[in-house]
């Protein structure tokens, strides 16, 4: 049984059909890339998986539970975490507090009111900041980070929720080549405890870190399989050639 199973997902906005029966299946500790031309429905599918949108039709199953109509907080508590396409760190808070905010989401209200979990969470905050090479900036406001660093902070925050599945919408958007390489490195160790669905334009990046790929085109799944299978696939080559 896969960790995440989305079947027959359609999403209609007025007259626009963004998704038309798309499907996706992600196994335990699998890195799954979601690719396709602009407007193919990648981000919409991500949002349906994360609960930011409710699909018009179709069903999303996560760890054997139907989560199609669950709200984002309910999904987060079930073990799903999302990094937005547009960075959404909390700019006036320090990096430390950004991470703590994500980590303490599971503490009870009483623990929060009496600050009973922050001592315990301190080491986890610092470990995450170290892991994402941000520890020396821990007490600066998140707004002062470079774009690439903000993306890393976001990934760190998404991981702080201890997800079984992490959804990353364009994690390397606007990054330099070097930053992309580092992002790949930072993501590798996650595999030991977490699956990943990743939307990305950079095909080299996707090829380097993903196990399987799903290609969307005009809201439908064009192909799905291992990286090698997809690279050999004729119709996939065609849409990417057509675009080039």
């Amino acid at each position, binding site marked *: 049984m896969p960790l995440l199973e989305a079947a027959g997902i359609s999403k209609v906005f007025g007259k626009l059909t963004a998704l038309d029966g798309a499907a996706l299946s992600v196994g335990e500790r699998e890195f799954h890339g979601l690719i396709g031309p602009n407007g193919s429905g990648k981000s919409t599918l991500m949002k349906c998986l*994360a609960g*930011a949108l409710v699909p018009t039709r179709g069903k999303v199953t996560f760890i054997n539970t139907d989560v199609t109509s669950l*709200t*984002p*907080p309910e999904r*987060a*508590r079930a073990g799903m*975490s*999302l990094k*937005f396409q547009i960075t*959404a760190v*909390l*700019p*006036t*808070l*320090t990096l*430390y*507090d950004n991470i*703590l*905010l*994500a980590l*303490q*989401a*599971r*503490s009870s*209200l009483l623990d*929060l*009111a*009496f*600050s*009973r*979990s*922050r*001592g*315990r969470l*301190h*080491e*986890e*905050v*610092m*470990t*995450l*900041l*170290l*892991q994402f090479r941000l*520890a020396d900036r*821990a*007490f600066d*406001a998140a707004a002062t980070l470079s774009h690439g660093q903000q993306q890393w902070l976001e990934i760190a*925050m998404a*991981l*702080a*929720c*201890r997800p079984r599945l992490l959804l990353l919408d364009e994690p390397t958007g606007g990054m330099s080549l070097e930053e992309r390489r580092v992002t790949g490195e*930072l993501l*590798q*160790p*996650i595999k*030991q*405890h977490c699956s990943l669905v990743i939307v990305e334009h950079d095909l080299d990046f996707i090829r380097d870190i993903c196990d399987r790929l799903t290609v969307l085109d005009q809201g439908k799944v064009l192909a799905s399989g291992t990286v090698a299978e997809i690279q050999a696939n004729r119709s996939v080559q065609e849409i990417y050639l057509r675009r080039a």
Partner: protein
Amino acid sequence: MSSTGTGTQPPPHVIEAARSPVMASAIAGRTKVLPILELALLIAASIAPLVLRDYITVYATRVLILCLFALSFDLVWGYAGILSLGQSLFFGTAGYGVALLSRDFGVASIFAVLPAGTLIGFVAALLLAGFLLLGRHPSSVVFVSLGTMTGAYAADRLARGSHYLGGQNGIPSIPPMTIGSHELSEGPGFYYLVLAILVLIYLLSRFLLRSQFGLALAGLRENEQRIAFFGYNVQHLKAIIFAISGAIAGASGSLYAFHEGFVWTNMLGVVMSTQVVLYVLFGGSGTLIGAVIGTAIVEGLSFWLSDNYRDIWPIILGVLLLLVILFRPLGLISLVLGERERVGHFGPSLKEKRNAAP
């Protein structure tokens, strides 16, 4: 170690460095303006009745009660980003509530009426939150602000039309509040009582807002959608802080009723709600002390201006308010307080860290 750390465990010396007090105190070293400001204001407020003439002390008592009311608005707007334009609903409901308690049941002991007023504000806010905030999906800012404003407006209208509540005239000549056998009339005694309550509630609010709960509220204010994806139930968070703020507004409303000796419909309506918004915007939201300063300055200015420029004082005051909001959108407090200190930080104290270390 956390499950997230596996794999890229940094070398031990790096972890050690992160744990060291040097890093942790990186922020502690910076000068703090806020405690100095708070202390200075407390001292000034404590000696004020000794130097002020009696009728001004009476006026200052009313200002302190309004400061408490302003705190309640700062809590929801400055900290949680909920634009409540009907804060007077809780202030006035509690005022009317305690007025009725003393008129119809002869209850005027502070130990009964103050808790009762606080509870009335709390329950009224919780009920309104049930309508406005507790949907399955978060409600929009406009919906909440219009909803709260409508609530205040409706309450005002209802009170005006109700014979039992005294209609347009409200409830006059409420008997004085009592502590044991002692009757509290306006003057220094009442002043110090209100000051003590204000300081107590200020400190309690500060404790809560600097806790991890305060961090969750900061997240709520900055990006509600984002923190929902962490697993926070933003609706519950909002309802809780809204109800707490209602309780504080209720406490100040009951003090106001006994201090003035009567309640009338303005206490419930939109005018009072708008006034409290102005206090907080003027002083600066999200700092607590800004709400206090804003109230004191706006009320002090009105007092002085209305004495000296009898005909045009509201215009002068209005222009001043506009200037502050135009040139200091973060309020007067931003003249002395940097952003880092205004927003604060929420990490553990050194002691907490030491206890957490294995």
